[in-house]
């Protein structure tokens, strides 16, 4: 029995409004560290810097999930408790509120002179109650008429709005949970002219919710036909990105042309395709000493600054010994004495490819996964360095490289979130409920006839204007 009693006590504590409030404030406080420290989900490079500059501290911070605040057990614990507390707090109130729909207002209190705006009306007499009743009806009060008194109440909508608001918050939390349990999110870099088929292997990164299967991806195929980026000539700031694609859905059907912009994703049901980033892939041909082509094609480089100076790696495992290049691509190359060669504009106006040539073992068979954008030079030695203009060929000891051209690439982000409609409706109802509850006036007014006529009221939640209303009622009672 003690155990049950304790559980009951615990439940009552958890579902009390005070606990809900404390948990809400706690959630606000718990959100703070995530805005002060870099988060893995947003800025993994900055997190790595913490580990480089002070490993011990970073290790301890990691132990407390300070780089993963919003997925941490302690953050989840707070919002789950809040969720339960909210339901436990709001559901009984909703039931009570529904029960109260048909009910009459409570009895008129014995001593009205303790209430707000108490007044005694000299005239009126017997017809006072009749006049008061007419006034209450006109002003949409619910009334309870007793032998010599009327108890009237208004503002039932306030609690309705209040409950609607809190239930909507629960709906938002349900939407968030559905999205994270049944959704998926992935990114893929695609060169202009290439195809993307929506299967798990096409992605660079892809994560599924806990209850989401691999086969759940919407089947479609997308070919990037064109990509145009416009920049401000004076400031290099981007002004517009437009991606044109031809899409077949389902795979194999007749393709349709579609345009994706930064604020205009392509939508298939709950799945949306976003244009998230872009960059350049220089096109190179690599030949061995005999002149046979050992590598040809565009290589995706990663942009480093606003003028799209990009760096990347080209790996040629089919030569013996293996060859690799560390390269930077400058869309509009410019050189100065202080900065060396750099890019001065994000569009391709004067492209230059600066390469260093490495020979040795690329380490591709070591079993450790490698970044495609970086060259592991621990078992290689540098055998050449050169800057290539468009069309140039550089001959190094065991072969040659030709800088043939460039292509743009786009980073597609593909998100499936089945919970977001719930969150959206929750949000709309929350605002609606909030408006109703904050702007409904809640009042109780009593009229009592005895040896004299007494009027008093109660303004719940201290919304002003009660005395004006009582004045009006008094006038009505006095004058009929």
């Amino acid at each position, binding site marked *: 029995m003690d155990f049950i009693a304790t559980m009951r006590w615990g439940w009552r504590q958890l579902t009390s*409004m005070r606990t809900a*409030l404390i948990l*809400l*404030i706690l*959630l*606000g406080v718990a*959100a*703070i560290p*995530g*805005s002060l420290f*870099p*988060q893995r*989900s*947003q*800025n993994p490079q*900055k997190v790595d810097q913490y580990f480089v500059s002070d490993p011990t501290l970073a290790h301890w911070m990691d132990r407390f999930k300070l780089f993963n*605040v*919003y997925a941490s057990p302690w953050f989840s614990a707070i919002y789950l408790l809040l969720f339960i507390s909210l339901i436990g707090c709001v559901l009984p109130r909703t039931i009570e509120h529904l029960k109260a729909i048909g009910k009459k207002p409570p009895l008129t209190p014995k001593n009205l002179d303790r209430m707000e705006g108490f007044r005694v009306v000299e005239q009126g007499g017997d017809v006072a109650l009749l006049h008061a009743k007419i006034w209450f009806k006109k002003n949409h009060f619910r009334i309870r008429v007793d032998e010599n008194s009327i108890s009237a109440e208004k503002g039932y909508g306030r609690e309705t709005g209040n409950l609607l608001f809190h239930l909507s918050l629960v709906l938002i939390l349900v939407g*968030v949970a559905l999205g994270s349990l049944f959704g998926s*999110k992935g990114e893929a870099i695609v060169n202009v002219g290439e195809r993307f088929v929506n299967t798990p292997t096409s992605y660079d990164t892809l994560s599924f919710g806990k209850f989401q299967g691999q086969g759940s991806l919407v089947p479609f195929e997308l070919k990037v036909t064109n990509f145009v980026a416009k920049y*401000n000539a004076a*400031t290099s*700031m*981007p*002004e*517009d*990105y437009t991606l044109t694609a031809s899409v077949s859905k389902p795979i194999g059907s007749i393709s349709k042309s579609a345009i994706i*912009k*930064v*604020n*205009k*994703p392509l939508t298939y049901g709950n799945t*949306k395709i*976003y244009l*998230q980033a872009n960059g350049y892939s220089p096109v190179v041909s690599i030949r061995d000493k005999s002149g046979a082509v050992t590598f040809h094609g565009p290589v995706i480089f990663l942009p480093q600054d606003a003028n799209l100076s990009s760096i990347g790696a080209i790996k040629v495992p089919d030569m013996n010994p293996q060859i690799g290049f560390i390269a930077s691509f400058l869309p509009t190359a410019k050189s100065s004495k202080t900065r060396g060669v750099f890019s001065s504009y994000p569009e391709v106006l004067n492209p230059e490819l600066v390469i260093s040539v490495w020979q040795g073992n690329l380490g591709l068979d070591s079993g450790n996964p490698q970044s495609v954008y970086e060259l592991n030079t621990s078992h290689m030695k540098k055998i050449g360095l050169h800057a290539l203009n468009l069309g140039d060929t550089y001959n190094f000891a065991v072969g040659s490289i030709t800088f043939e051209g460039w292509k743009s690439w786009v980073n597609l*982000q593909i*998100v499936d*979130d089945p919970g*977001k409609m719930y*969150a*959206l409706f929750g*949000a*709309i109802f*929350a*605002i609606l409920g*909030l*408006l109703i509850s*904050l702007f409904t006036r809640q009042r109780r007014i009593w009229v009592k006839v005895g040896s004299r006529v007494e009027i008093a009221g109660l303004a719940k*939640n*201290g919304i*002003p204007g009660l005395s004006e209303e009582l004045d009006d009622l008094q006038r009505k009672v006095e004058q009929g």
Partner: protein
Amino acid sequence: MNSIQLATFSNHAIYAALFVFTIAFFAHAFEVAWSVKNVEGSDSTVLDFSKTERAGRIGTAMMILGFFIVTIAVATRGLSAHRVPWGNMYEFSITGAFTLCAAYLFSLSKWKLRWLGLPVSFFTLLTLGTAITVLYRPSEQLVPALKSPWLAVHVSAAIISGGVFLVANLVAATYLWMEVIEKKGERPVWAKKIPSLESLDQLSYRLIAFVFPLWTFAVIAGAIWAESAWGKYWSWDPKETWAFITWVAYAAYLHARVTVGWRGRRAAWLCIFAGSTFLFNYIYVNIWGTGLHTYSGL
């Protein structure tokens, strides 16, 4: 006028507004200081508004004139770039000054609030001054991520909420100050025009109750926009996080008042705390923060 002329015109209008608000500030300061008169032959002081009523009126007139000039400055700034003028922190700041004045003038038409003109003109000067000197950026096109109809909806709701939060904070601060003064005895003469503690308390509550749904809407509109621009309606970006913290703080304030019955000093401190989370978000996250809300420059 072409774009460059419009942008220059907008800048000149800001300088003109700075001048006008300076006059408003001194007029309000004069009104407060000179209405206190020593009674001859005794130590006591009385309020005499016969000489300063005119100063107060000049102050209000200058506030209205300044408000119109700032309106023109914000509008021409937007016209010069063919978009809503909310692309960077300079533009947020001049629009913020606009909403602060609008909130003050609107309240002035309903309640006797002229005493608030002194801090309002001071904060307007501070905001406009920092904007034109420190935060200034030339008028430009928006980066692609900002090109959305939601910019107008989300940012206007956030800026209006911010203006009202700031006014509510000024009222709450005045409450605390007056309370300290009243503890020592009667209010000195210069403070007699300021409303009673009870009305100050009520006023800051009403401002917040009025604007809290709008702030909720601003956060939700931001989430809807984020969904179409970034692929996720909520990603705990620092700005989102602090918008949420502000929301929680004001929700706590409303609960504290309505259900727990907090009034007076505790409510005023909570109000000021909630307002400072908004200011922290605006200043810290814009200038030192990183994340998705940081665009070119500021």
